[in-house]
């Protein structure tokens, strides 16, 4: 009995691995259940350990080669730097969320958060002071060491300079003497020209010699020792944290929407008292206006949220939302059209020229076309009912609007349309192929059973073409994801593409690492999207025994 349960778990796991397409995990599972350990260990070595070693080797080559290539944006970041960039981005996102939470927290909870934050700030400030001191101390020691290192160089440079100057003076004197001789007619004029030339060459040589030493000094100065850098970075990080906590306290005490609301209400109350006590009619009107204004402000601040900054995580979510909107559009168009193409040769003949001409068109061209077309629908996007509704926080009443965080705008719509336009074709062509290549025997069965058009379509044609349809959709999603990143970069539609573009444009010391980080994020998400499609494809294909899964 126990054996059969164990077997069930084992085959359940293996089936899951098979359906999800992670064939690599097959040997470890079999090994865990004690099936042919020798073979499984061999398979693990061949198909897991070797690939991992290969990837590690690639990372190693990257680590070694990267810093050797100096670019305008600094040297090529190593994997470690990219990881640091990821951590920085994560911290940035976390801080934004903390601030957003601080902005809306109310009542006793706000007091509690404020106390905790203040305590933490005090602790951090102390730590920052210690670290700054330590950093200074390290820097001071390092400076001494550097000085010790520099002193002989400087002495040599000074000596060299003095020597060169002396030599130059001597040559100057020589030249003057020769010139005097020429004037006196005692020497050839060409001898002076030779001397000047020789003088120039010697001067250049002297300068070069000085430059070598100067560069050495500069290098030492510009490249402080690692421990100084580390101490500085530690101090900076805590100083940064201190800044963040100061800002948090600022938000908690001043900008918090409930604090603001209370403030406005208090003002309104004050005005009311003054209105009651007013003797001058003009003043009464002024006070009444002030009451109305403050009441309105109080009402407004109730629903305010902290202005969101585009972190890489938010950009990722937005890209995903955009790609699914575009992919959905593509599928909604491609599947019905593909089925019609597969069913009807005339329809196929009509669509063929359109498919052939528009399929090779670059996404960039589509982007520009959609930008113009979609732009015309939304002359004033801020006030357009579509975006007002989609971005309204209170759309679903107390639950709130789960889509509000996307901040939908026309740029997102035309990026999605571009994705749809480019992702349309593989799905369309594959669906048409799936429908037209349906087994003739199945159609004969349908004839004998006298199935009508609709039951023929839904009972026979669509089920039998589903595997190919999903194969097409899988290609479509991959194409869509690639196109989207380019479209976002070009159109400044928020998303990973824009993140990359912004990083490229602003050119801070972290930018290069951030771009490579974005490259990995895009790649990993693309990988998982593909896996999802493989999973769906396996679910609908009936040949491999997973139709019931």
């Amino acid at each position: 009995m126990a054996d059969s349960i164990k077997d069930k778990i084992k085959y359940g796991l293996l089936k899951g691995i098979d359906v999800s397409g992670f064939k690599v995990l097959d040997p470890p599972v079999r090994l865990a259940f004690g099936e042919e350990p020798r073979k499984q260990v061999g398979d693990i070595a061949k198909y897991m350990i070797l690939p991992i070693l290969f990837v590690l080797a690639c990372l190693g080559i990257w680590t070694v080669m990267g810093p050797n290539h100096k670019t305008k944006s600094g040297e090529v970041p190593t994997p470690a730097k990219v990881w640091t960039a990821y951590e920085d981005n994560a911290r940035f996102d976390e801080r934004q969320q903390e601030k957003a939470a601080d902005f809306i927290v109310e009542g006793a909870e706000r007091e509690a958060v404020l106390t905790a934050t203040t305590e933490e700030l005090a602790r951090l400030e102390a730590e920052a002071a210690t670290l700054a001191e330590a950093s200074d101390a390290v820097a001071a020691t390092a400076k001494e060491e550097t000085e010790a290192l520099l002193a002989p160089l400087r002495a040599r440079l000074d000596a060299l300079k003095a020597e060169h100057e002396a030599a130059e003076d001597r040559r100057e004197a020589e030249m003057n003497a020769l010139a005097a001789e020429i004037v006196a007619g005692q020497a050839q004029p060409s001898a002076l020209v030779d001397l000047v030339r020789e003088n120039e060459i010697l001067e250049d040589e002297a300068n070069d010699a000085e430059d070598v030493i100067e560069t050495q000094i500069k290098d030492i100065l510009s490249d402080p020792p690692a421990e100084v850098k580390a101490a500085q970075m530690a101090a900076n990080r805590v100083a940064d944290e201190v800044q963040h906590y100061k800002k948090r306290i600022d938000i908690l005490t001043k900008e918090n929407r409930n604090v603001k609301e209370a403030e406005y209400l208090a003002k309104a109350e004050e005005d009311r008292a003054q209105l009651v006590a007013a003797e001058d009619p003009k003043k009464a009107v002024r006070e009444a206006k002030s009451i109305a204004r403050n009441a309105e402000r109080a009402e407004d601040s109730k629903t305010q949220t902290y202005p969101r900054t585009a972190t890489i995580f938010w950009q990722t979510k937005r890209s995903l939302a955009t790609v699914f909107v575009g992919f959905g559009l593509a599928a909604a168009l491609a599947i019905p059209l593909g089925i019609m193409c597969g069913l009807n040769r005339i329809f196929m003949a009509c669509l063929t020229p359109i498919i052939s001409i528009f399929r090779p068109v670059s996404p960039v061209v589509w982007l520009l076309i959609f930008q113009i077309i979609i732009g015309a629908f939304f002359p004033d996007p801020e006030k357009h009912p579509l975006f007002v509704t989609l971005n309204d926080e209170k759309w679903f009443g107390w639950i709130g609007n789960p889509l509000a965080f996307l901040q939908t705008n026309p740029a997102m719509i035309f990026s999605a349309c571009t994705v749809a336009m480019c992702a349309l074709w593989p799905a369309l062509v594959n669906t048409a192929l799936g429908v037209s290549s349906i087994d003739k025997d199945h159609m004969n069965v349908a004839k004998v059973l006298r199935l009508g058009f609709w039951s023929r379509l839904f009972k026979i044609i669509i089920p039998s073409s589903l595997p190919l349809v999903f194969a097409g959709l899988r290609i479509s999603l991959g194409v869509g994801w690639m196109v989207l990143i380019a479209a976002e970069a070009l159109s400044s539609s928020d998303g990973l593409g824009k993140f990359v573009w912004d990083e490229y444009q602003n050119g801070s010391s972290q930018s290069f690492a951030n771009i490579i980080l974005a490259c990995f994020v895009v790649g990993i998400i693309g990988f998982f999207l593909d896996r999802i499609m493989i999973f769906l494809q396996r679910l609908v294909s009936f040949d491999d025994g997973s139709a019931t899964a």
Partner: protein
Amino acid sequence: MSLQVYEPMPGKLSSRFVEIYSLVKEYPNPYGDDFRVVEHFNLNIRQGEFISLIGHSGCGKSTVLTMLAGLNEISDGGIIVGNREISGPGPDRSVVFQSPCLMPWLTAFGNVMLGVKSVYPHADKATRKQIVEHSLSVVGLADSMKKYPRELSGGMQQRVGIARAIALQPKVLLLDEPFGRLDSLTRMELQDVILDILAKEKLTAMIVTHDVDEAVFMADRCVMMSNGPKATCSEILEIDFPRPRDREEVFNDPTFFHYREHLLAFLEQRSHIKGETRTYNGNNFIGYLDKNQIADLSQRVHVA
């Protein structure tokens, strides 16, 4: 659309339930005359009769059967089933194909239900379910209704194919080499299943087969087709074993060997000879197919 109606011949209705007259199948040939596969094939089938169609591979046996099923266009001549000329597939004729042709995404139950739904559009759910369950239990699959085709053996898949055909409650059952891909044990089992069903339901049936034993054991008349192109019904052998037939008894009967020898001799020697159809009772030649029958048929045909 004009419908051709044939007046029934009084008293002879059941003797000519299916009439195939001057049946021709041509395929267009862009480089010359059209390619005739079947030419002037004539055959009358009594109601409840079992015909086996035998001949060399590619001679056009299946073409005749698919034309009768309505899956293949008739180039010339015609087929009358129950006083109506056929013009396509109909619920009165159902087919068991050589490969089971089951929909892999449907269970055995779903596969049989597929046709039931369209043939009985007005029946309620419970009735349909009953029909499907009955058909599946008739072929011995009462316990495997919820299984998918890939979970069934070849023989079981073909059983589902048979159940799907009989669930339509047809008047004519057409079997297109239904056991061609099965091992001999399964083949025998399914032959018995078919014979049982035919006996119970009083169906008219036609089987296309390569297997001489099968042709003799199952049929009332064995139609031998000459070699193609321009294949036609060359000889007809009447087989008068009593029904229900017991396999052992039939196979031990000396006449069985006569029939068998006759069929083999035909396949080996006479199948290439073109001529008029001869009819044999046992091994005795009893005459050519009556030409008047054809003339008679054409007289009775008029457009309604």
